[in-house]
């Protein structure tokens, strides 16, 4: 049986655009013989029942996430495809701790660099996704990933890397100025922020924070690597930790982004680590073009298999799903259903008691949602009933007619005023130039 590894497609000349997928590819190319697996750039999480990539398909069994796939490979091959089998107890502990460290810290920095930093997202990441995704996913998935990355990095307080956020803040300030000053909207000077100007300012604000974040990640890794050829001491062979590191850190090192703060600080703070990662990713991945993934017979070192083209049914369900996920109340119901489905599925790995309690919990949640819908409907109905009872509507209708008549006369006045405007208003008054001085 040939194992199928489904991943996000290639980007930035790496075989995948996602760190977990890169790590899994590295593990496969080190551990699994080349004729026993194929790599499918399906780039669609819905191919697997868990809605996650990377996902490994073996017959009818699906396994997702790096760690689960590594565990599955160990069981499937009776330990033959286990890169960690020769580790001592202390090395095993180190491997667990460093893996968790690399995953959590690097993910935050990658989120900041690839998604939250606006120029990088709009000029590099989003087009890269556009190249590997099919219609309509290319319009649906990148914004979802963008939002997820933003919410993950929110606690770090670096939202000023995000130009969109800044613009919204400006708009709020702007409308506050209008409300406060009663100044006609057209005459408020709107400062045009240039990108370089913004960067100049934000980079000063963020510099210290980013320095600290990158130093926290790179210094321990540089120290752990030392002069060795891999992370864990005393081992000639590479372990799963090396795979994870090359997966995550090559996304920090390789992409050629407009705003290169992550790559620069990695090369500056951890020169040995950078060289090591660069060497490893050349050896394991080579240089990948997007077209390699979609033509099965390529000169690439990886066993690519072209993904199935999307059928009409798949496109339809994708559209329906994204529509449903965008609808407020429906979204909650669907989220709970997703939890319940995975709990009740027999191969979810939960014990019967656990899955029962999880399913019961999810059912309770959907009851809550229905209850809240009912409450809202009841409340609105009560309000409407009260308004009818008091006679608000009839009173308002009369009032509206009067308003209409008044509006007609007002419209004429408005037009006259606007015609007069250019002649009589001195623009410099509003721009703050002192006319008396003239």
């Amino acid at each position, binding site marked *: 049986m040939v194992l199928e590894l489904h991943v996000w497609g290639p980007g930035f000349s790496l075989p995948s655009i996602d760190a977990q997928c890169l790590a899994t590819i590295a593990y496969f190319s080190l551990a699994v013989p080349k004729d026993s697996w194929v790599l499918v750039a399906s780039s669609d*999480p819905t191919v697997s029942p*868990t*809605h*996650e990539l990377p996902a490994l398909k073996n017959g009818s069994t699906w396994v997702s*996430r790096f*760690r*689960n796939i590594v565990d599955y490979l160990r069981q499937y091959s009776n330990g033959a495809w286990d890169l960690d089998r020769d580790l001592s*107890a*202390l090395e*095993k*502990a*180190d491997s*667990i*701790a*460093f893996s*968790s*460290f690399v*995953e*959590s*810290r690097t*993910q935050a920095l990658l989120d900041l660099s690839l998604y939250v930093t606006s120029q990088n997202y709009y000029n590099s990441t989003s087009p890269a996704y556009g190249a590997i995704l099919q219609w309509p996913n290319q319009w649906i998935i990148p914004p979802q990933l963008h939002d*997820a990355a933003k*919410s*993950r990095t929110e606690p770090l307080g670096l939202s000023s890397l995000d130009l969109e956020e800044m613009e919204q803040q400006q708009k709020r300030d702007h409308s506050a100025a209008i409300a406060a000053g*009663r100044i*006609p909207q057209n005459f408020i000077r709107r400062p045009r922020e240039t990108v370089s100007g913004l960067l100049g300012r934000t980079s000063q604000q963020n510099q210290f924070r980013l320095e600290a974040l990158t130093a*926290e990640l790179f*210094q*321990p890794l540089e*120290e*752990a690597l030392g002069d060795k050829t891999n992370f864990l001491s005393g081992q000639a062979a590479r372990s799963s930790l090396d795979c994870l590191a090359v997966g995550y850190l090559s996304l920090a090192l390789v992409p050629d982004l407009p705003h290169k703060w992550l790559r620069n600080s990695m090369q500056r703070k951890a020169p040995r680590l950078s060289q090591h990662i660069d060497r490893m990713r050349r050896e394991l991945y080579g240089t990948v073009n997007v077209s390699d993934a979609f033509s099965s017979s390529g000169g690439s070192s990886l066993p690519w298999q072209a993904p199935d083209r999307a059928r009409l049914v798949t496109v339809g369900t994708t559209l329906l799903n994204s529509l449903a996920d965008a609808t407020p109340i429906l979204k909650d119901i669907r989220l709970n259903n*997703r*939890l319940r489905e*995975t*709990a009740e599925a027999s191969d*979810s790995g*939960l014990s019967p008691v*656990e899955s029962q*309690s*999880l399913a*019961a*919990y999810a059912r*309770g949640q959907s009851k*809550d949602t229905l209850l809240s819908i009912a409450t809202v409907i009841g409340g609105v109905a009560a309000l409407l009933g009260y*308004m009818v009872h*008091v006679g*608000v509507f009839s*009173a*308002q209708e009369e*009032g509206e007619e009067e308003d209409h008549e008044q509006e007609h006369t*007002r419209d004429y*006045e*408005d037009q006259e*005023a606007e015609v*007069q405007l250019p002649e*009589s*208003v*001195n623009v410099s008054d509003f721009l703050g130039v002192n*006319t008396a001085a*003239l």
Partner: protein
Amino acid sequence: MTTNNDSRPEQRPDDSRREPHRARDFFSVPAPVKRLFDRFPLITYPANELPHCALSTQRGNRLFVFTDAAGVRRGRPSFNPQCLKWQAYLKFVGIDFELISSNNHASPSGVLPFLLPSPPADISTPIPASKLQKWAIEEVHCEEEQQLNVRFEVYSSLLDTGIRNAWLYSLYLNHENFEAVARPLYVNPSTTNSAVRSALAAQLQQAARDELLKSSTYIDASALEAEAAEAFEALSTLLGDKVHFFDRPNPGLFDASVFAFTHLILDQNMGWKYNRLGQLLSQHENLVQHRERLLKFF
């Protein structure tokens, strides 16, 4: 210049007449709603007096944590891992402080714990959890342990991700545990109103769920528990047969961080209904003994 001055008084009334119209068109409130809101505020109470309880006359450091009245009297460990970590750390480095039962809404930064230093220091500045270590180092000149061993930060990430996520799941999202443990500790002391209680409970659970969904697309209980099991195994190996982590003579910040979770997971008084984490942790004898040794400080 003269034309400017002449045109101004002419323009002003026109302008001022135009503005309200426009404002009314876009921003005006419907008449019935406006009538309703005109009646507010119904009553304005006089401002509260400043609190002058016995506490403000006392001169010690005050640490604000999640705890109950009995906990305050006897200095028992807090039932919140974050608070317990700092409570234990301050005890280990030998700083005297007084516990005060509090909640998130009382904190200047929105999270507990925080510390009000004793009056000789600057009384008006509360110290949030992120600055507590720096403050303690200045007070008693203990060492900054992060600098001593590169593994400090690396193994801390096990506590911050693997064990914390499993803790969030088992405390807030496991239905039985939430009813038996979290509700009496976090929800019920806030209010006696059952509607507010259920709203608070729902908020807490939603916050925990959001936190877990940040790192994955769905919540997989078995994966969370497996990660916690791995983390306990790694910590147990790191501790080995030493008395404290990193073979230090006295317990420090890392011991406090580990103790904060291991104590609460193993504590019989918490009343866990479903304690898979406890089962996983009990397999590592040295971590259990480590917790018992440190419990003697309380």
